[in-house]
Structure formats: structure tokens, C-alpha cells
């Protein structure tokens, strides 16, 4: 039989969501303004967005840009980060560059990129790519730098060439750290996806959201926020499942500390 405590810990995320919606509902009823619809009104608007063909095309276009930006970003950033981690020359060349670009909000580059590349897919995908790249490069760099020298020596003694050591020792041993970077990158991809569409309105989930805002359709605005939030939770949870599967060998067993049991 499942104990009461286990039941609570299983249901905790659900209870948190319901609690949040409850506070929203009560708050909206008390404030009673047009720009803050009740949770029930917002939730009611969700199905109408998801069944509208036009909206679905917009949302799918957003997700496509995000997938491309994320995919290309990860594919280029991991090798760069790993090389930086294992070569002092590469690191000292790229490090200053990354230090300069790290604190710049990538969406702030959007107007300039729009000037160069127009308001189409390319500009938005590029901004997502930039948002994803930095955390992935940074974590790959840290992961590669921490690889134990003796592990590489053991590989060299077995006859692994420098390239093979990179691919078959540095990459797997840095993988837990790389995947932490990818998880951050995934969330950043979602954020930059929406903000890029806020600046260059033409299509996408952000486009629906801000058009609705302009037209004062506040229940649609909040419904879109719920949809984007749900997408974030879903993507993150899916990625976390993948991550756990890939690096099961490195995870310490999750035992609750005595004080909590």
C-alpha cells in the first residue's frame, strides 16, 4: 500500500499547479479587470486556439524554427566546447569572444539581424541558435576540461589516437556536463523563440500572443501563456528523461537523506 507521504510527493507537482490556478482565479475575481481574465476563462480559450488551423500552423512554424536552431546550435557547440576544453590555444582564442557575447541578451540583437537577414525564418532561427549555443559551449568546455588526464593516458596506452580519444573518452566523460548545458539551451531556445517573434511579428506562437494583446483579447493572451508554459514543461521533462537514460552511469543513487525520511 502506498503510504500517505509517498502519495503527497507524487501528487506535489499537480497540487502546485492547481494551487497556482486557484490563486489566479481568486485574484482575477477580486481585481475584476478586463486585462486579467480568470483562470477558467483562459483555460477555456486553450482548446479554441489548438483547434484553429491558422494558430496551429503558427505554433508548428515556431517549433520548427526552435528545433532547427537548437539542433544546429548543439551540433556546432559541443565540438567547439570540447576542443576548447582540451586545447589551451583554442580556449584562449574563443574565451574572450564568448565572454563578450555571454551577457548580451540574444533577442536584443534581433533588430540588427532583421536588418541583415529580413524578418523571415532565417533571422529568427539565427537568434535561437545564438541563445542555445553559449550555455552548450560553456558546459562542454567545463566538461572537457575536467576529464581526468590519467583516463586519456589509459586510452593512449591502448592505442587510441588523439581523435579517437576526443570522440571516445572526452565526449562520453563530459556528457553529463554537456547535457546540463543542453537542458539550459533548450529552455533558452523557447524563450528566444517567443521574444524573436515578439520583435519580428509575422508568424509563430509569439505572433498570436502579441496580436491578441494588441487587440485586447486577454483570454487568448493568457491561454497562449499557458500553452507556451506547457510546451516548456513538456520539452524539459522529455529532455530530462533522455538525459537520465544517457548518463545513468554517472548519477548517484537518489536516496533521501535520513532527516527527511
Amino acid at each position, binding site marked *: 500500500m502506498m503510504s500517505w507521504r509517498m502519495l503527497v510527493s507524487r501528487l506535489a507537482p499537480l497540487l502546485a499547479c492547481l494551487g497556482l490556478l486557484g490563486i489566479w482565479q481568486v485574484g482575477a475575481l477580486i481585481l475584476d479587470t478586463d486585462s486579467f481574465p480568470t483562470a477558467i476563462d483562459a483555460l477555456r480559450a486553450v482548446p479554441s486556439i489548438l483547434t484553429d488551423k491558422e494558430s496551429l500552423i503558427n505554433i508548428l512554424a515556431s517549433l520548427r524554427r526552435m528545433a532547427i536552431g537548437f539542433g544546429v546550435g548543439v551540433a556546432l557547440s559541443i565540438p567547439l566546447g570540447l576542443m576548447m576544453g582540451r586545447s589551451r590555444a583554442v580556449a584562449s582564442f574563443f574565451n574572450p569572444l564568448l565572454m563578450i557575447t555571454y551577457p548580451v541578451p540574444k533577442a536584443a540583437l534581433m533588430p540588427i539581424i532583421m536588418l541583415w537577414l529580413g524578418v523571415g525564418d532565417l533571422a529568427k532561427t539565427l537568434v535561437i541558435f545564438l541563445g542555445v549555443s553559449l550555455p552548450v559551449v560553456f558546459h562542454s568546455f567545463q566538461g572537457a576540461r575536467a576529464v*581526468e588526464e*590519467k*583516463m586519456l*593516458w*589509459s586510452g*593512449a*596506452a*591502448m*592505442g*587510441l589516437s588523439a581523435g579517437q580519444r576526443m570522440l571516445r*573518452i572526452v565526449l*562520453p*566523460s563530459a*556528457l553529463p556536463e554537456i547535457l546540463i548545458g543542453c537542458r539550459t539551451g533548450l529552455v533558452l531556445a523557447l524563450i528566444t523563440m517567443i521574444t524573436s517573434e515578439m520583435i519580428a511579428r509575422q508568424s509563430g506562437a509569439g505572433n498570436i500572443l502579441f496580436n491578441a494583446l494588441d487587440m485586447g483579447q486577454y483570454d487568448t493572451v493568457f491561454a497562449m501563456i499557458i500553452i507556451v508554459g506547457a510546451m516548456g514543461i513538456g520539452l524539459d521533462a522529455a529532455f530530462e528523461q533522455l538525459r537520465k537514460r544517457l*548518463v545513468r*552511469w*554517472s548519477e*548517484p543513487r537518489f536516496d533521501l537523506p535520513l532527516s527527511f525520511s
Partner: protein
Amino acid sequence: MIEIDGVSQVFQTSGRQNHLALSNISLTIQDGAFVSILGPSGCGKSTLLYIVGGFVTPSQGVARVKGKAITGPGPDRGPVFQEFALFPWKSVLGNVMYGPRQQGVSSAEAEAQSRQLIEMVGLKGFEHFYPKELSGGMKQRVALARTLAYHPAVLLMDEPFGALDAHTRTRLQNDLLNIWERDRKTVLFVTHSVEEAVFLSDKVVVMTRSPGRIKRIIDIDLPRPRRRAELLLDPHYQKYVVDIEGMIDDTSEDELQP
């Protein structure tokens, strides 16, 4: 045969000063000999091992194996490190199979050989465990099996039992001797334990502290196969230990002089 010929090693410290770690070391190790390098920490004994492994290039002099100058690591010289250096993403079996697979041995054959080696080091039943699930002593057993798996002619052991508790250490010493007495590989064994060096070796090389020089080379003339219980009571063994400990004490006093 391993020949170390006039090898010196200079390291640059963080203060841009040159630190002489090894000074003019010459040493010849015969095939099939078990040779220990003994010295206080910081005497460069591990560096000497890394030079033979090809992991470190000496500043001066040359090291040769079978008459050929060492230019890099190779499967003829298998290292076993104090830090184990296992591949944590591979199971015990995956770790042991790694070398043979790299050498082009077929998967089935590599697995059969590896299972045999895992049994030999006393880890039968742990084939599918990951390194994080093993104790220190078990990890070092895996590391030894992983190195033996690609049949190096020379074993390079860098304080392999230094991180283990006394009990585990004794058991691994016994097991290492048993394994070694079967196939008599050349072993270069770095340690700072006098008892360990005398118990295991044919020859003990005593080094001085910084800069590392060879102080004395002592032949350990004790019968094999060696049994720990007999050896501990053997006055010859006791005399070797006391004599060599005396030499180490001397080097510590040297160090106090400016």
C-alpha cells in the same frame, strides 16, 4: 629490457622557476623483473614511470624499451594508476574489453578473454556493474584486469594500492604476486611503502627527495613464491625492511640542509 639513460626532468613551476624533478637517472630493468621505485613523495618517482610510459617526454636523456627510444604511449606498456582511471560510462566488462577491442580482437573473443580476467582478479559476478558501484579495491582490480587484457609486456604501476585501506591493500598485494608469478611480466612499481616494495620486488630502487636521484639499488634475495605469513617472520625480510627504512630516513635529513 627497459633502459633509462641519463634522464633528467625539469618542470616549470607557476612562479616561472625551473624545478628539477629528476636528475640524471640511469637504470636498466631486465625482462620479467619486478622492480619497485621507492622514495618520499615529491621525489619524481611517478614522473620516471610516466617517462617509461611515454606520457611525459624527458627534458634530457632517453628511455628505451627493447632497444627502441620511447616516443609515446603504446600497448606494450600498460599503466595502472592510483586513481584507477576507469571509464565510468562502461561496465566492468566494457572496461576490460576496451583494450582488446581497440587492438582489433573480435567482440566474442574479447568478451571471453575479459570474463576470464575478471574471474582471475576475483570479480566474477560483477561484470555488469558500473565503476561508481564498486569499492576502491574492486576498482583497482578492474583497472588491473583492463590493463592485463591487452597483454602489455611491461606493467607500469603508479602507487596502485596507495588509496586503499590496509586490509584491501594486503589482499591486492597477495593477488598481484599470484598473478605475476604465473606469467612473469616486467613490472615497474612505484610506491612509498617499504614493506610493499620488499614483499613484491626482485629489486628496489631507492630515490632521494628533490631533485630525484637514485640513491641505492638493492637486490631482494628472497625465495619465491613468497607467502606473506612466512615472509613476515623471515629475518632476511625484516632486515631488508629495516635497512631500506634507514636509507629513506637519511634522505629526509638531507632535505633539511639548505
